[in-house]
C-alpha cells in the first residue's frame, strides 16, 4: 500500500485497506468477537495507557500500517517512516499534551521584539549514534535540507512563507540563530513538526538509510515497507528507555494487524484507529486490550468553496447548522469523542475558543432560502480509507433529513480517495490527526492557496488575522487573535467539523507505560509489564 497522499504530512496516517484486504476484515473481526465475551462498553483505557509500570528490558513488537516501497528514514521526507522518527531522532523542541512547547535538543530559546530573529541555546554533550558530537551546524544543515525543494518536505510549505535556506546560522557550537524573512511568534512551535527532527551535518543524502540521530534508540535494521529493528541507545542524553529493542513489522491489512495482535504476534498496532466494533473484539480477547487517545482524530467534512454548490457562504452555514452533532457522533463513533461545534481546534488545545455553530434546523432552512434554494441534493463522498468516514457520511445523511438538504452517499476506492476525490468533489468526509500547533493548523489547512486547504477556503481577511497573530509577540494578544481567526472561520462557513474522536489503539496486555498524544509517542516510558 502506498501513501497516495503524504499522510503524516497531512496529519493523516494512511491506513488504506487493499481491495481484497479491506473487506477481509469483515468476518474475521465478527467471528473473533463472537468467540469472546464481547459487550458494548466503551474502552476503559485512558491516554495514560495501562497504569502498570514497565520493567526494564525486553523487546516490543509493533505492527505498522501499509507503507510505501519508497519510504525512508529521512524525517524531512513526505515518505518518512513515522514510527522510527521519534525513537531515532530529536527535535529542537517538542509539544506536550497541553500543546505548549517544551525543550528537546534546545534547552532554551528567545525571540526578538519584532519576532524576526530567533536564538536557540542547544544542549551540550549530546552525541550522534555514530559517536560524533552534536553541534549547531547539524541544525543548520537540517533546516537547509528541510527547505531544499528536492526534498519535497511537507514542512517546507509551512516554513517557506517566512524563512529561507540561508536563514539559519550557527553562532557557535551550541547557539543557533534563525533570521525570519517575516515575523512569526509561533516559529518555535512550528519546529515541533515531525518533519523537523534534527539530522547530522552533511547527511542529507545518506540519512534515509543510515537513520543516525541523537534519539533514545539506534537503528539495527530497516527495510522500506518491511520489517526493521531499533535497539536502546545507552549513550542517550535523556532518561534511558525501558526497552532493549523494538521490532517493527509492516502489515498492510487492518484486520491482519488486529489478528496479529490477538494471536500474540505483535504487542502494539501503531497508527490504527480501531473502529468501535473492532475495539470491542480486541477488548474481548484475553491477551490484548484497547487504549484510547483523547480527541486524537479530527473528523471533518470539507465543503469545496470553489464549487458551484458551496461558493455561497449561506449554503455552507446552512449545512453546518443542519445536522445534529449528538446523533452524528453517536452513530459514527458511538459517542467516544467530543462534539466540535464545527470548530477545527480541539477543546484540549490551549488556543481553543469556546464558540461554535450549533444544530439549528430552522436557521439552516432560512439560510438556504436566502441562498435561493428551498432544497438541495448533494453527493457526499466517502471511502473505506478510514473506518469512520462512511458511518460519518451515513450519519450526516440521516441527520440532515427533513432539513433542506438531501445527501447521497458515494463511495470511492480507498487508494484513489485522496487523489481523485479530495479537493475535487464538492462534499466529502476527511480526517486529520490533532496535535498540530495552532499556527500550523490554521495556516496549513485554511490559509488561501495552502496545498492542504481541503475546503479551498480563501478569505484575505482571514489570512490577515493569521499574519497579525504571527507578528504578535505578546502571548495573550496572540491567543485572542488566533481565537478571532477561529470565530471568523466558523462564521464564514469555512469549516464543517462534527466531532473530535478518541483514537482507539490496540495493544497487548503485556505493554506498560504506553503514552501518545498528537504526533508525540513516548518511547522512553513504554515497556513490558514486570
Amino acid at each position: 500500500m502506498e501513501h497516495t497522499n503524504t499522510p503524516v504530512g497531512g496529519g493523516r496516517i494512511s491506513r488504506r485497506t487493499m481491495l481484497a484486504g479491506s473487506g477481509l476484515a469483515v468476518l474475521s473481526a465478527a467471528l473473533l468477537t463472537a468467540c469472546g465475551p464481547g459487550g458494548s462498553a466503551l474502552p476503559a483505557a485512558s491516554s495514560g495507557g495501562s497504569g502498570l509500570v514497565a520493567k526494564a528490558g525486553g523487546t516490543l513488537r509493533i505492527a505498522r500500517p501499509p507503507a510505501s516501497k519508497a519510504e525512508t528514514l529521512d524525517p524531512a521526507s513526505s515518505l518518512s517512516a513515522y514510527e522510527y522518527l521519534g525513537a531515532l531522532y530529536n527535535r529542537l523542541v517538542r509539544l506536550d499534551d497541553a500543546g505548549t512547547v517544551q525543550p528537546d535538543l534546545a534547552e532554551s530559546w528567545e525571540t526578538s521584539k519584532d519576532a524576526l530573529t530567533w536564538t536557540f541555546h542547544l544542549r551540550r554533550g549530546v552525541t550522534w549514534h555514530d559517536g560524533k558530537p552534536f553541534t549547531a551546524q547539524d541544525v543548520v544543515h537540517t533546516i537547509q535540507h528541510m527547505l531544499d525543494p528536492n526534498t519535497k518536505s511537507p514542512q517546507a510549505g509551512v516554513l517557506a512563507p517566512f524563512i529561507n535556506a540561508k536563514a539559519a546560522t550557527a553562532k557557535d557550537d551550541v547557539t543557533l540563530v534563525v533570521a525570519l524573512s517575516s515575523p512569526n511568534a509561533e516559529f518555535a512551535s512550528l519546529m515541533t513538526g515531525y518533519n523537523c527532527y534534527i539530522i547530522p551535518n552533511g547527511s542529507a543524502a545518506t540519512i534515509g538509510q543510515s537513520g543516525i540521530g541523537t534519539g533514545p534508540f539506534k537503528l539495527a535494521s530497516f527495510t522500506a515497507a518491511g520489517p526493521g529493528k531499533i535497539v536502546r541507545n545507552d549513550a542517550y542524553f535523556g532518561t534511558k528507555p525501558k526497552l532493549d529493542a523494538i521490532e517493527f513489522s509492516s502489515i498492510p491489512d487492518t484486520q491482519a494487524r488486529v489478528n496479529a495482535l490477538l494471536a500474540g504476534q505483535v504487542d502494539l498496532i501503531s497508527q490504527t484507529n480501531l473502529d468501535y466494533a473492532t475495539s470491542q473484539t480486541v477488548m474481548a480477547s484475553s491477551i490484548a486490550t484497547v487504549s484510547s487517545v483523547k480527541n486524537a482524530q479530527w473528523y471533518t467534512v470539507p465543503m469545496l468553496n470553489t464549487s458551484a454548490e458551496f461558493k455561497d457562504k449561506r449554503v455552507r452555514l446552512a449545512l453546518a447548522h443542519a445536522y445534529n452533532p449528538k446523533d452524528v457522533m453517536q452513530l459514527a463513533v458511538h459517542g467516544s469523542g467530543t462534539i466540535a461545534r464545527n470548530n477545527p481546534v480541539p477543546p484540549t488545545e490551549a488556543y481553543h475558543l469556546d464558540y461554535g455553530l450549533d444544530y439549528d434546523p430552522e436557521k439552516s432552512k432560512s439560510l438556504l432560502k436566502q441562498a435561493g434554494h428551498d432544497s438541495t441534493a448533494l453527493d457526499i463522498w466517502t471511502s473505506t480509507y478510514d473506518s469512520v468516514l462512511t458511518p460519518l457520511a451515513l450519519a450526516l445523511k440521516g441527520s440532515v433529513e427533513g432539513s433542506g438538504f438531501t445527501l447521497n452517499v458515494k463511495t470511492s476506492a480507498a487508494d484513489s480517495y485522496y487523489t481523485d476525490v479530495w479537493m475535487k468533489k464538492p462534499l466529502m468526509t476527511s480526517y486529520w490527526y490533532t496535535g498540530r500547533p495552532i499556527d500550523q493548523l490554521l495556516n496549513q489547512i485554511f490559509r488561501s492557496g495552502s496545498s492542504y486547504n481541503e475546503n479551498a477556503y480563501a478569505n484575505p481577511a482571514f489570512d490577515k488575522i493569521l499574519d497579525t497573530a504571527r507578528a504578535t509577540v505578546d502571548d495573550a494578544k496572540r491567543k485572542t487573535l488566533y481565537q478571532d481567526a477561529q470565530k471568523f472561520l466558523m462564521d464564514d462557513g469555512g469549516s464543517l467539523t462534527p466531532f473530535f474522536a478518541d483514537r482507539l489503539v490496540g495493544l497487548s496486555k503485556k505493554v506498560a507505560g504506553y503514552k501518545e498524544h498528537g504526533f508525540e509517542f513516548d518511547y522512553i516510558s513504554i515497556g513490558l509489564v514486570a
Partner: protein
Amino acid sequence: MFTRFVAPRLGWAIATIVLSTVLVFSAMQALPGDAATQILGQNATPEAVATLRRQLGLDQAPVARFVTWLGHALTGNFGTSLVSGQAVGPEVGRALLNTSFLAGVTILVGFSLAMVLGLVAGLFRDRWPDALISTVALVGMSVPEFIVATLLVLAFSITIPLFPAVVVAGQNATIGQLLPSMPLPALSLMFVAAAYIIRMMRTSVIDVMESDFVHTARLKGITTGRLVIRHVVPSAVLPTLNVVAMNIAWLIGGVVVVESIFNYPGMGSLMIRSVQSRDLPTILLITVIGAVTFVACNLLADLAATFLNPRLRYPRNSK
C-alpha cells in the same frame, strides 16, 4: 516430441503473453492518475507532477513507452519500479518465490489429496462416501475464501494458538521464516481449489467406469484393485490435469484474498500495491508472469496428458 507438441504451441503462447501485456498496458493508461500523482499525493502541484513525470518518462507517448518496454523485456530487463526506483525483477522475483512456495505446498498436499477423494467419490458413486465428499466439495465451491481463511485464523491461531495468524517477516523472509506460518494459508487455498479437482476427478472416474474397456476388463475376472489402478486411474487422471493446471495458474496469478488475510508477502499483495501506486513496470511484469504461468500450465497439462495418453504419445503410423 518437441517439434510436434511444444514448438507450434510455443509460438501461440508467446503471442498470447504479449497480447495480454498489451491489454493490461492499455487498461492501465485509462487509470485515473499515474505514478507521479500517486507518489506526490497531496503535494501534487502541477509543476511537481510535471517534473516527476519527466523523471519517470511518463511524458512520452504510451505506444512508444510500450514498445521500449517490450524491447527491454525481451532482453530480460523489465525496467525499474516507478515507486521504489529499484529494478522490478528482484522484487517481483521475491514475491514469485514466496508465492510459489505457498503454491507448492498447496499443490503437493492438497491436490494429491483432492485427486484421491475424487477417485473415492467416483468409485462409490451415489453412496455415502460420495455424498460426503461431494457435499464438502459443494461447500468448498459455495463459501468465499475469506470466510474459510478467517475461520481458520479464529480456530487455529486465536482460539487455539497453534499457528501464527499472519506472516510478520517481510518480503525477504527466508523459507525457514515462512514455513511456520504456512499451514493456515495453505489450508485455505486447498479448501477452495480442491473442490474443483475433487469434482473433476469424480466425474471422469465415473465416465471411465462406464466405458467399454472397463466393462471388458471386469469380465476378465480381475480384482477391483487392479481394475482401478491399471484400467481406471490412468484414463481418469487425464481430464483432471487441466483443472489442476487452471488452479496452479490461479495460485501463482495472485491469491490476493488469502495473501492479505495472512499478510503473506506474495504476488497478490504486490499486485494490489502496484495497481494502487500505478507502478506500471511492476504490474506488467506481474502480468507477464501470470500469463506465462497460465500458458505454461495449460501447455504442461497438454504435455502431461500426452505423456499419460499413448494415443498421443504413439500416434498410429498413419494420418
